[in-house]
Structure formats: structure tokens, C-alpha cells
């Protein structure tokens, strides 16, 4: 049996499958349902001075017949009292002592306010705190959420306020609405954070109602900037998680968040450096039941690959992430169309001619095109556009030339230039 347990900065959980802070983690009933379904951790919806929400709150991005490829929301933090939330967390911890319950918190930017909130919330017996410095809508207009996370000094100072009174591990939830994720992450570390979680939602307008000329979702004729999440944000989140995993100056544990929907997504975040993962939109779409296949899929994968503990895979792909300048210029692949599998849609032809390197040729007497090996650059576009699995293969064609990076190429050219001069 594979060991799925994780330990993120002292927060222990039976598995890396956590639920992130938001509508899914608002109540004790949800926590009961989630843990009964098999989730390993539960980051309680951000607790603070209760707010008032608007109606409606969510907008969806559909792609073809696929619904909710992306989701945007303008719901704020908990609208329930701090006392109610603390009491429910305490109940849940009594019923589910093994599972991780992390309380997300947010206060106005005053030392006393933050420290009082920490004291109140830690009374619940929660396993850790997550500081919400990252909500991009609503709260940031009040100087909270992303308004803190976007200024490294505020992030460091606020983290420090919390750390000086907190008895449980403190993780800082980072906003992606910045230009370099390392700056706020390092600031959190400087403030004493035990770990970080990322990403929170991306500032967004999900769409516009073309009949009413209003952004979606509409609140009585007007809309606002929302937070974007769901499968579409995964690449952005992966990029930021991996960037921090690689940052030697940083070095804290990471809880990965952003569009995680399947067991594959979980594994991708973990091999890119996350110690635990947090899911939200997928549960908003399908319910807590999706955990069954996540656990099953991850377990089967780890068994198939011969791992005994999920902790063995954390960061496993990080060393292979490098700068463009270190990539091997002598590695060459070319596209090849597998005639037996090609169904002749010629979508690859249109893609390559108009958006690639014009290297796919139509032939007379057959709808199966041919790749011009002389001009093909091995970009992958045809493979990506092809609707049939296995109908296009990328074959290696370099003749074993030694590794040569752009950096080496430039320095060699520079040396040559010197000799010439």
C-alpha cells in the first residue's frame, strides 16, 4: 500500500488532497461531507469580520460543449460570524482528528486586528493558519486580500504580526496578480511564514452579455472584476509553483492550487514542487465525490511507478525545468503521419500551413497528408491539432550531435569574433 500522507510545514494530513478556501469550505456540513468522501485537508473559507455578498456572484467560461473550463467569482470571505466558524471548526476537529483543517483568515491591516483574529481562530484547535493576502476582488478595495499580497513590504509586515502570536504553522496564500511571484513569496518568508499556498484567483472579466452590454456576472445591470479559476488557470499556477520550487532563496514548502481537477493534475503540481494540493472549482462543478478517482488514480500511478510514498515524487520534475538558454539546440524532432491511423481530416495541413511552418503536403489520390521532412521544424502543432491519438508521431532525427545550448553557442561565437578581431 502506498503511503499518501504529507506534512506541509508541520501541518500533517493523510493525503495531499486538500480543499482550498472558498464556497466549498464554508461550513461544518461541507467539512463532514468532504472528509467522509475522502479528502485529506480542508482550508476553511476565509474568516474575518463578516461581510455582505452580492447576487449573482459567479460567471463561467465554456469551451464548445465543455462547461466551466474557467470560473470567475465575486463572492467575498465568510459572511458568518467568527464565533460560528470557530465553533464549527472545533466540532470538525473533534470528529476528524486525522484530517488537516487549516483556517484561512483575513483582517484589516492593523496589527491588533490580525493578532486578535489569530488568537480567536486558533481557539478552534485548527491545524494551521492560511493568511489570505490574495483575494483580487472586493476585499482588496478595502485594503485587504490582494492589496496586501501585491506589496511585498505589507506581506512581510503582516506575516510578522501573525507569526509573533500564532501557535500553529502559518502559510501565506499568494496572489498571481503580480509580475514576479518570487517577490511576495520571499517577503512572506522574511515575515516568518512556514509555507505558502498559490495561486489565488486571477483578476478577470469572464465575459460580456452582448444583449445587455454588461460584464458577467451581472448585479442589477453592473459587473465588476472577479477572480478567475478552474482548469484554464492550471498552466499559470504550475508556472508559479515551479518558479518558487526552483528559487533557492525561497525554499519553503508549497501547497499548490489552480485548476486541479484530476489525479493527473495533482501529480503534476507535486512533481513540480508542491507538498500538498488544494482543489476548489472542480468540487464546485462536480461535488466532493471526485476525490474517489483522485485517490485511486494517484495510488495506481504510484504503484505502477514503484513508489512507496507520495513524498518521493515531490519536486521530481523541478530539476528538468531550466532556462531557454540552456536547452539543447542540437536536439531535433520531425513530425511523421502514421498512415494506418490517419483519418484524413487534414486539420494538420491547415494548422501547419497557416500557423506552423508550411511543411505538410496534400497528396493526390489519398487524404493522408505527408510531412516535408526538409522544412518541418518539429514544433508539435500538427500533433496537438490532430484529433486522433497516435496518428502523428514526433520522431527524433538529430544524428547524435553533442548538447549545445544557446549560451554555449553565443559564447563560442563571441570567442570566434575575438580571434577574428
Amino acid at each position: 500500500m502506498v503511503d499518501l500522507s504529507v506534512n506541509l510545514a508541520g501541518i500533517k494530513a493523510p493525503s495531499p488532497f486538500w480543499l482550498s478556501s472558498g464556497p466549498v469550505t464554508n461550513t461544518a456540513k461541507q467539512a463532514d461531507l468532504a472528509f467522509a468522501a475522502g479528502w485529506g485537508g480542508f482550508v476553511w473559507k476565509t474568516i474575518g469580520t463578516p461581510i455582505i455578498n452580492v447576487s449573482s456572484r459567479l460567471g463561467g467560461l465554456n469551451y464548445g460543449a465543455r462547461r466551466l473550463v474557467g470560473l470567475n467569482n465575486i463572492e467575498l470571505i465568510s459572511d458568518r460570524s467568527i464565533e460560528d466558524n470557530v465553533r464549527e471548526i472545533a466540532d470538525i476537529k473533534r470528529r476528524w482528528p486525522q484530517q488537516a483543517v487549516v483556517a484561512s483568515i483575513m483582517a484589516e491591516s492593523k496589527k491588533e486586528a490580525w493578532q486578535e483574529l489569530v488568537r480567536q481562530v486558533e481557539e478552534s484547535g485548527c491545524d494551521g493558519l492560511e493568511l489570505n493576502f490574495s483575494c483580487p476582488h472586493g476585499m482588496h478595495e478595502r485594503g485587504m486580500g490582494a492589496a496586501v499580497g501585491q506589496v511585498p513590504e505589507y506581506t512581510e509586515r503582516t506575516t510578522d504580526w501573525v507569526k509573533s502570536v500564532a501557535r500553529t504553522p502559518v502559510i501565506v496564500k499568494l496572489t498571481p496578480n503580480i509580475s514576479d511571484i518570487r517577490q511576495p513569496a520571499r517577503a512572506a518568508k522574511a515575515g516568518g511564514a512556514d509555507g505558502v499556498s498559490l495561486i489565488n484567483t486571477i483578476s478577470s472579466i469572464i465575459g460580456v452579455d452582448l444583449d445587455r452590454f454588461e460584464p458577467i456576472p451581472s448585479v442589477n445591470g453592473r459587473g465588476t472584476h472577479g477572480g478567475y479559476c478552474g482548469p484554464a488557470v492550471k498552466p499559470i499556477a504550475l508556472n508559479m509553483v515551479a518558479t518558487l520550487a526552483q528559487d533557492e532563496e525561497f525554499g519553503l514548502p508549497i501547497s499548490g492550487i489552480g485548476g486541479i481537477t484530476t489525479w493527473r493534475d495533482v501529480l503534476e503540481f507535486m512533481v513540480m514542487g508542491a507538498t500538498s494540493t488544494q482543489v476548489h472549482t472542480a468540487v464546485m462543478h462536480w461535488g466532493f465525490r471526485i476525490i474517489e478517482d483522485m485517490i485511486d488514480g494517484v495510488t495506481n500511478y504510484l504503484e505502477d511507478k514503484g513508489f512507496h510514498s507520495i513524498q518521493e515524487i515531490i519536486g521530481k520534475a523541478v530539476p528538468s525545468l531550466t532556462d531557454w538558454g540552456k536547452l539543447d539546440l542540437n536536439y531535433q524532432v520531425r513530425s511523421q503521419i502514421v498512415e494506418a491511423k490517419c483519418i484524413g481530416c487534414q486539420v494538420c495541413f491547415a494548422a501547419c500551413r497557416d500557423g506552423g511552418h508550411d511543411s505538410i503536403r496534400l497528396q493526390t489520390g489519398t487524404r493522408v497528408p505527408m510531412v516535408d521532412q526538409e522544412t518541418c521544424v518539429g514544433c508539435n502543432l500538427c500533433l496537438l491539432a490532430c484529433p486522433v491519438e497516435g496518428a502523428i508521431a514526433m520522431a527524433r532525427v538529430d544524428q547524435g550531435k553533442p548538447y549545445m545550448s544557446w549560451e554555449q553557442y553565443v559564447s563560442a561565437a563571441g570567442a570566434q569574433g575575438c580571434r577574428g578581431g
Partner: protein
Amino acid sequence: MSEGTSELGGGVAVGRLNEVTPPFSSQAALDEAARCLYCFDAPCAQACPAAVDVSAFIRKITTGNLRGAARVILQANPLGASCARVCPVDELCEGACVVGKTNRPVAIGRLQRSVTDWAAANSKSVLRAGRPTGKRVAVIGGGPAGLTCAAELAQLGHAVTVFEAREKAGGLNTYGIVPLRLPLENSLAEVEMVRGLGVAIRTGVAVGRDVQPEDLLRDYDALFVAIGLGGGAHLGVPGEELSGVYEALDLIAAAKLGDLGHIRIGERVAVVGGGNTAIDAATVARRLGAREVTVVYRRGQEEMPAYKYEVDFARGEGVNFQWLAAPVRIVGKGQVAGLECVRTQLAAPDESGRRRPQPVPSSKYVMAVDTVIKALGQAPLASTIARLGLQVKGGRLEVDAETGRTSQPRIFAGGDCVSGGGEVVFAVQQAKRAARGIHAAIVA
């Protein structure tokens, strides 16, 4: 026709003759459209005789641009609504669909139907008449070819008058295709769409009887002849005059118009013929209450001209088949009492490429039936063609394949009177070519 229990003349519930294939819900259409791969130079479009850009209209379904989708279809094929229902899609677009190589092909016919139904239901005027050219064209015959040619010419700005001998326009779409496959209202909606382009459609006006060809040649810049075919061919056996012997097309027309009138379908019916009309007539006879319906065909199952999906549908309706049997006499005194047949065997292929049936000696037998339906194909309208002085070969009008021009320079032709009988979409194809031919001739 709506669901319900209103009665035909023969005391038959109308609902039994409703269109068989249900429409897609808008959600089903979206889901199905999402299966299209949007092929480059798509084989489905290449396979379409009317050159409908299939993947273009399907993509428009996925983007919610139904008006654009309807335009793509109807600009290529003004009879897109009926073709969506009656085209042999397995042999044309859907047969060419590459999705079919690994999965069920995209349901192109039903998608086209959902778009054209939407256009009809929303009264969207998708096609527009062109700027008037001052040229006048007379179209003789208001069937699929005539309507298509009229629509094409009207979009090019020509003033078109259609002369239709029957009470309603639409030709075989109105009178000759069972409502199970193509409801009357859809055919008539297409007629109205063509009328909406400013085409004058004069029904109940027969050229040669009410209007003279010479006058048309004098008053119009060009003529398009799309008179179709004439009455059903004779069986040529004794007893054809008996009561209870019907022409398949008469039965279908009666069923389509909802007035069976004098037609009385009995308990046991023999349908003679092997084409789609025979199959349709057999299916209608079953739905009208016949207990036993048998299609009698003188060749084998393989040689039947009817489409396989039609035959399969008829089988599902409980229609029986007797292959390799040829009628020699209709038995009865005043009223049909039986059909005497002889067994046949197939000899070498004849000029049509099909193996020729020959009677097996001493193999006569009598089928006990009270109704005989003849579906032997239609004969050419020789007299009308003669009045126009056009060249004919094998009963078919001879035309230039590219322009549809007949032996007379200002007279063009298309449809069944040229092809000898074929699918609606082939009539559309010929009419489109002829419309281009006419346009080139009259604007020159």
C-alpha cells in the same frame, strides 16, 4: 402535421404518418456539432451534389450563429430543408465523414435539418433577391429542380415566373415523398421561401394547355424546363383495370395531402417494384392499416434500387419481401382477389448493368391479395417535350452537362426530365448548373 387523432378519409389516425425521425433538441444539435472535426477541404462537402459547405455550417452551430449556418446551407441548396430529410446521406456526406473511420459519423443530415427548421420557425429571411437585371425567365415545373433554378436566378436579380400544372408547387417533395420522411409543411415552406425571393409561382397552370410554349419564348429571355416525369409505367399484365389496383405515387400523394379520397387499402397488399417509391408505398400501406404487405420484385435483394436504410426501415415496419418474382396477372372479378406471379432467375447483366430476370418455367403461383400497388417508375412526359421541340434520347431531354442547355439555345432543362428520375439533391445540382448557364446566356 401535428400529433393527434384527426382522421384521414380512410379513417386512419394522422399521427401514424408523421415524420419518423425526431428533430434534434437544440442541446443535441450542439453536442452533435461539437463532434465535427472541421476538416480542411472537407470530404463531406466534396460528397455533396449541392456543394453545401458542411463543416462551415456545423461550426456556425457551435458558435451559436444559426442564421449564418442557415445561409451557408440555403445559398448552396435552397431545398436544404427537404434534402436534410431525404438525402441518402450514408452514400453522400455522412458516408464521406472521416469521423466515421473511428466512430459514428457526424449526423450531418439531422444537423442540417435542425438549422433549416430553425430558419423556418424563426422566419429568418436568409436568402435575398439580387438587384433587378430586367431579365425574365420562365420556369416550367415547380418541383425541386424548378424551385432551385428559380431561387438561384432570383438571387441573381432575374424576374422569374414558375408555371406549375398541379394545384401545389413542390413536385415530388409535395406529392411523391411519404410524409414519414418529408412532411408536406416542409415542402410547402420551401415553396414559400422561393416565393419570398420575389418569384411568381403560378400553380394550376399547365404549359401547353393554359400557356403556350411559343408565348413563353416570346415573353421571356430564357426558359427552364423542369417538368419531371409523367404517370406511372404500366405493369402490362391482365387485370390492371381492376378495382383495388393503385399507382404508388397516387397513394403517396393522397397520404401526404391527408385525403385518401377514393383509395381503399385492404388487408393484404402487394407492392410491385423495387425502388424507393415501392418501399415508401409499402410502408404507408402498413401504416394505413394493411395487415400484410409484400413487396414483389423481379430481381434479387442485391439488385433492388431502393436504399438499404429504406428497406431496413420497411422491414422494421413489418413489410415482407418477395424477391425473384414477377407478376403475370392480377386475378379478380371487378375487385382484386390475387396477384399471379412467376418465379424468376437472373441471367447475364442487361444494358442497365443489372442481371436480367427470366421466368422459371412452370413456377406460377397466386398470392391472395386484395390490393395491388404499382411502383414501376414514371414514364417521360413525351407530349410536353414534343411541344417544345427539344431533342430527346431514351425518353430523356438531352442537355449540355455544364450549362443545362437543350438543343434550343434559349431553353435549358434539369431534374427528372433530364436524369430520368433521381434524388432531390441531384435535381438541385442540375438546376444550379442550369441557373448559371441561363445567367451567363442572358446577361451576355
